[in-house]
């Protein structure tokens, strides 16, 4: 843009010496066109969001009219019988996302720190590409991987169901989150099916899907840590890990939180991976290792073929709830990223 600074009028300067110079902006046509395009783009994105919200709300009206606020507290999903709500699957969605984030964040932090700080120059780009490739794998592939490899061969393996879930249920079963009803580790004929198709396994699959997103956001932020401060830390005798702890991590905190929130947003909406693995139950199921769970998006995928109009309206209402929740999470992420120091000008 061109800023034209008008030369100070000698007479005026004489009259009012303290008056500031007047700054006038004259925008060239290309500037105007660019501003217009950008503005239209921004407005379209907002409008699409708004239209999605309006569409979901309109289509959800019959269901919300039937159920009212009970839609948020009812657990059963029986539109044909007139009793349905998202309480069960909403909690399920949150639990799956929580498991995913708990697993993905340490993994992503480690990967990002290694790529940004430790990896030799030559292989770092390869690693970056690999992580990006991981994000490009379709989620149905992760779902199949979970169903045919992760669950039967890594997590609940063999006829006694050896693996992490069994260990957790055996030794940490006193903790309500890890309790598994109907599982008795001392019974050799006991059923291991109660350890399969659980929130935990679905959460691990979702974690694999969100790790690359979180990792690339973090890596980007870590690599922007100011060189001056890094060198300052080294100059004060810090080891590399000491430098990372005192410079890179504090600098990247906003980015880490933001990346986590973005991952959480995706984890909340993940569909096919969950749909393939989980055994759906329509109750609030707080035991993450126990068979049965659910999420809103996979509920929609599972029951979309349901033919009665009230069922479709119910799914739309469930979609609206998910939409609102994801919006909130992403909004929170935006706020945190904006408030953080990352990206702000540094003295470097």
């Amino acid at each position, binding site marked *: 843009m061109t800023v034209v600074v008008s030369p100070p009028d000698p007479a005026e300067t004489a009259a009012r010496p303290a008056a500031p110079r007047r700054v006038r902006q004259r925008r060239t046509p290309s500037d105007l066109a660019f501003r217009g395009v950008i503005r239209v783009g921004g407005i379209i994105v907002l409008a699409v969001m708004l239209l999605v919200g309006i569409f979901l709300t309109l289509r959800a009206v019959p269901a919300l009219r039937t159920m009212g606020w009970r839609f948020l507290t009812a657990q059963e999903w*029986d*539109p*044909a*019988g007139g009793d349905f709500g998202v309480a069960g699957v909403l909690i399920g969605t949150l639990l799956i996302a929580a498991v995913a984030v708990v697993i993905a964040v340490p993994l992503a932090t480690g990967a990002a720190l290694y790529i940004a700080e430790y990896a030799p120059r030559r292989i770092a780009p390869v690693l970056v590409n690999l992580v990006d490739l991981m994000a490009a794998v379709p989620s149905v592939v992760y779902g199949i991987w979970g*169903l*045919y490899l992760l*669950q*039967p061969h890594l997590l*609940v*393996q*063999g*006829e*006694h*169901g050896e693996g992490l879930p069994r260990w957790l249920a055996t030794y940490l079963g006193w903790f309500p989150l890890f309790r598994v*009803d*109907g599982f*008795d580790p*001392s*019974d050799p*004929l*006991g*059923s*291991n*099916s109660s*350890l*399969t*198709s659980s929130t935990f396994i679905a959460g691990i699959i979702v974690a694999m899907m969100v790790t690359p997103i979180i990792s690339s956001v973090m890596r980007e932020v870590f690599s922007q840590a100011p060189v001056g401060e890094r060198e300052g830390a080294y100059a004060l005798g810090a080891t590399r890990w000491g430098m990372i702890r005192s410079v890179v991590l504090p600098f990247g905190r906003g980015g880490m939180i933001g990346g986590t929130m973005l991952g959480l947003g995706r984890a909340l909406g993940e569909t096919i991976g969950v*749909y*393939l693995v989980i*055994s*759906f*139950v*329509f*109750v609030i*199921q707080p035991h993450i290792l126990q*068979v*049965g769970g659910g999420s809103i998006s996979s509920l929609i995928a*599972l*029951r*979309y*073929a*349901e*033919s*009665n109009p009230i*069922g479709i309206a119910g799914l739309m209402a469930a979609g609206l709830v998910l939409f609102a929740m994801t919006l909130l999470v992403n909004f929170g992420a935006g706020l945190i990223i904006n408030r953080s120091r990352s990206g702000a000008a540094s003295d470097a």
Partner: protein
Amino acid sequence: MFKQWIRRRPRTTSRLARVVAAAAAAAVLLTAAPPASAAPRLVPIVGIGSTWSANAITAWARNVQASNIQVEYEAAGSTQGRVQFREGKAHFGVSEIPYGMKDIFSGTDSKGSRQSAYMPIVAGGTAFMYNLKIGGRRVTNLRLSGEVIAKIFTGVIRKWNDPAIKADNPGLALPARSIIPVVRQDGSGTTAQFTLWMSKQHQAIWDNYCRKWNKPTPCGITSVYPRQSGSGFVGATGSDGVSGYVRQENAEGAITYVEYSYAINAKFPVVKVLNAGGYYVEPTASNVAVALTRARINKDQKSDDYLTQILDDVYRSSDPRAYPLSSYSYMIIPTRLEYNLTADAGYTLSKFAYYFLCEGQRQAEVLGYSPLPINLVQAGMEQVQKIPSHETINIDQKLRSCNNPTVSADGGNALAKNAPQPSPCDKRGPTQTGTGTAGARQETPVLAAARCGGAGNTAGGGNTAAGGGTTTGAGTPGGTAATAGPTSGIPVPGAAPQIDPDTGEVVGGTAGVAAGEQVAAVPVALDGTDGWRLRHTLMLLAAVLLIALIVGPPLVSQVLQGRRDDHRGDR
């Protein structure tokens, strides 16, 4: 090399010129020719629906690729098939049940405005695939009556050693393992066929289960299997999902309902189901064909449900070879050019349909299905004539060239007529064969008391004595030993094996072992110790003491040292 390239160059240009000229000519021809005379082209077509018949459809789709027919089939369940076809998202749908079945769980689906017709594509049996081991050895010869199956899938029978299951399997010492019924959680035609059978044959059991959801009874058919959390049931998506779940090593004790072919592909056994004739049979192609000779087909050409099936008589067929849960699978074909259906797609679909109604039926048995009888093939081909811009063929001529395995010289159903009789050892009674089923053909050792001659061969020669007990002196000891064997939990080495059930002769113990080389294992359940015992307290105490022994001395010395230092500092 370079020279060659130079020499070739003019030739390339000339070829290019020729191609351009040909294209121009073709363009002129195309624009000049009236569109009506344009020959229909083969275009890729898309279908969606049943996973029950998906193994057959995908095999056929692979076979027709050679003749440039591209069929993309998405096995997403019958419910999806009906809905997506109705909404015009596919050229054809595949479903086990027609539109408009009353379903109190997921609601009745309407036919919608798209014009369509039903066409049978293949027959098959809804099998019960299971994962069960006795003493680390896979059971392959499990037999169940319909009532027991209904009770398993309604949560009434929860353990494999339930007396009702034992009564069906005198030759197996079943373990005290819990049963994990694995059901479909998506809208499924297999579920619909299974619940239809339950609602017709075991209405009281099914209605009792339905009452848990406060549903009006009689409950009837449903595509979405109702399931409560914490009931021990597991839900999975698609036939691949349920069979994939059952085949997992960790899923011991699981049982599911799925088409026979999935069990064959998974190399797993299926349950032999008791039919009204009193025999336990496997859903082989011939047993399904026998049962379906009793299917009532809607023959009213004007009806919307023309060619659909009524299976009540199939369930009750008293032929000893009939598999009760046999049914036909249907394709929903479009009958009008609407919903994005082009004439080319109609033409391609008709060619695909002719292929699988004719040649495709020959592979049905290998794939784990049963071929359509010739009258249904003919009716199906007549249905193809309703597809817009179908390929016109001479149906009679085509039928003769099909070599359909059900055709016989005298016009009867050859497959059903030549179906082998079941082994008399598999008649309801105190004996049981050890032969495997479906994808697991290996023999399962049978308890000596229930053994049926030399692995069922000698008894199989038309001698029904072992089951019927007409030979005095043989039937009774066998029968009592069968009931006594499993309940006492001991293989009874002395009493039962010494009497050959066929001849009634007493044979020596060593000879018996030599002849029946397989020894059945008997699982024994002992009372385990659980909870916190004195042992555990002592173990904990020992561990604490050990740690104290290692960590204690340095700590104590440090503390003492520190105190001494303090004193020195004071001074």
